[in-house]
């Protein structure tokens, strides 16, 4: 049983305050979903937990089973059991996913023998053409293929807690179903804890959410059960955007953040 604990997390990018005291607790087997309008700080939260350069933590803490993640290098956080499926997976020319998995296993003190079979098995599970595994990481992959590639790696690395930063964006309906049900299976079979960031309820058709958190302007303004996602899909953010904020978010006005481009 593992727990990721975020408490009082305040993060700046340059001079701008992005996160203003975020509290969260994600334990093994749980699925937490963060929803919120553009610019609310959702990606900042996922990046800062994983240690992407460019963010300044000004207050608060992030721990995994009591271990201070913020004091660790990114790769050490991954080795401690964290995984980030990126919103825009980086292209790494000339580097194969297999070589990366092999180095990760080796650093963990695990035998990398059989990593290629693991990759192939994970690819098969979500209908990811295993020929893509031969390519350089994310190079010449479509947006959807990149997300499936992230899911394959998640399956191979078996972290304790996975952050999924808009895993659903760029995925067609079939791929979304395959990826989200793979993650759901991991929450049951491997007790994977999930922190999913999404705009759309459709990720939650296969991936069963336990908790929904609404992030607006760097703060979680409301938490609740899956019914909250349904309400959001119906009514939008208007109710939350005005709560505790005098300059109601410009990004909320005029556009419907729940307008699903695939529907």
């Amino acid at each position, binding site marked *: 049983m593992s727990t990721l604990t975020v408490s009082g997390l305040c993060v700046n990018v340059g001079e701008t305050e992005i996160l203003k005291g975020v509290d969260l607790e994600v334990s093994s087997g749980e699925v937490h979903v963060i929803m919120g309008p553009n610019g609310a700080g959702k990606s900042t939260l996922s990046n800062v937990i994983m240690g992407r350069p460019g963010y300044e933590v000004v207050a608060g803490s992030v721990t995994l089973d009591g271990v201070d993640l913020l004091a660790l290098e990114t790769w050490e956080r991954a080795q401690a059991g964290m995984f980030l499926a990126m919103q825009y997976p*980086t292209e790494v020319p000339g580097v194969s996913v297999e070589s990366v998995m092999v*180095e*990760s296993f080796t650093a963990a003190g695990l035998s990398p023998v059989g990593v290629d079979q693991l990759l192939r098995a994970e690819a098969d599970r979500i209908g990811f053409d295993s020929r893509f595994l031969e390519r350089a990481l994310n190079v010449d992959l479509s947006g959807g293929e990149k997300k499936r590639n992230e899911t394959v790696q998640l399956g191979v690395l078996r972290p304790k807690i996975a952050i999924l930063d808009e895993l659903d964006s760029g995925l067609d309906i079939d791929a979304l179903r395959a990826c989200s049900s793979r993650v759901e299976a991991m929450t049951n079979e491997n007790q994977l804890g999930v922190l999913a960031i999404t705009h759309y309820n459709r990720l939650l058709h296969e991936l069963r959410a336990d908790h929904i958190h609404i992030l607006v302007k760097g703060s979680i303004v409301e938490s609740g059960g899956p019914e909250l996602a349904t309400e959001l899909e119906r009514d939008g953010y208007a109710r939350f955007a005005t709560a505790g904020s005098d300059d109601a978010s410009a990004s909320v006005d005029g556009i419907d953040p729940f307008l699903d481009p695939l529907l």
Partner: protein
Amino acid sequence: MSIPEMSHADDPVWLAELRSVAHERAVEAGLPSAEEEQWRYSPIDEIDLSSYYLAKHPHERLAGEFLDADSIADAALVIDTVDGFLTNVDDRGADGVVVIDSSKSESITATGTVLAESIDTFADANLALSPSPLVVSIAANVIVEGPIVVRHHIAGDGGLVAPRLTVVAGENSQSTVIEVVTSDEVEAMVLAVTELSLAPAARLDYLVVQNLATSVWQIASQVSSIDRDARLATNAVALGGGYARLRTDTRMVGRGAEGNIMAVYLGGGDQSLDLRTFQTHVAPNTRSNLEFRGAVDDRSRSIYTGLIRIEPDAGSVEAYQTNRTIKLSDGAWAESVPNLEIENDDVKCSHASAVGPIDAEQRFYLESRGVPTPIAERLVVQGFFSDIVARMPHSGIAAVVEAHVADRLQGQGQR
């Protein structure tokens, strides 16, 4: 300024004359200075050729081969020199290929025909001093299946060594030539010249791997002449040497000629890698594409200067040039200066040059998968080189190069 002179008493008359002219030219030109554009940023002012002696015979070598027997099992021909002297020719059935040691040939050979004019003192000194100027000729219409491997090794401590190879690719022939330059842990100066001559419609893939000890300095020139509809692909791997210079002149002299010029270079410790390129389009409808990639670590330096020159008669030309260098440490230094000189309007030309640190996003991506930082950096650099490595002419040898680069990257930063 003194250029050492060597008595080549047994030389054939024609070669003795050629050497004498080259020696005079070298003496006349003298050593260049770092003030000259072609020698800018180089430690040329520290070079004293008279502090080295001329080897009279090949010394006993200590270091093993860079290319193991397996990687060249399919070679058509293996030629070895030690300290510039031809020591071995192992013909494994290369039909249509002739190897000549010009110092033993009464009739005139192709030595000095591609590089007929003086480009610098050191190339002239090479001709004056080279004990075994080799010529490898591929007959017209011949396809040589396996690679022709020429291995130069430097074993003599304090030696001034002048290996020289001239490749003549006959009309419509197809071949692969691989040169490997290695040394023992000795103090030596290598003045190397390679001439590549491509007859009409010849296809030649050429790879040179330089893995000298860092106690050795090298000043090398590679000069190519590509005739009508011929295609040359060259790939240089610069790994060793304390100061190691490679000047590459690629000349498209016949209509439809094509030159692809690639290199990977990797500096560590206090190495200084000096790469100068010239793409010269003499004939119309010619094409050249240069792609160099390097990385410098520790306190090492790399210098790249490149010139694309389009002569007045060369219309409908495409010429491209890219050099990219990754700086792996704050103490490393890299300079990259591309240049164009165009005397014809009907051309497509571009050059690009970049020096920068390792891509932080790429590193972060690999780290986020649990790959420790130094390994993530190694993978990113190997990936950066992989485009060039993948286009090396021989996959077995490319694999050896790749493994060696990986080892080097692993060990770097610990010196």
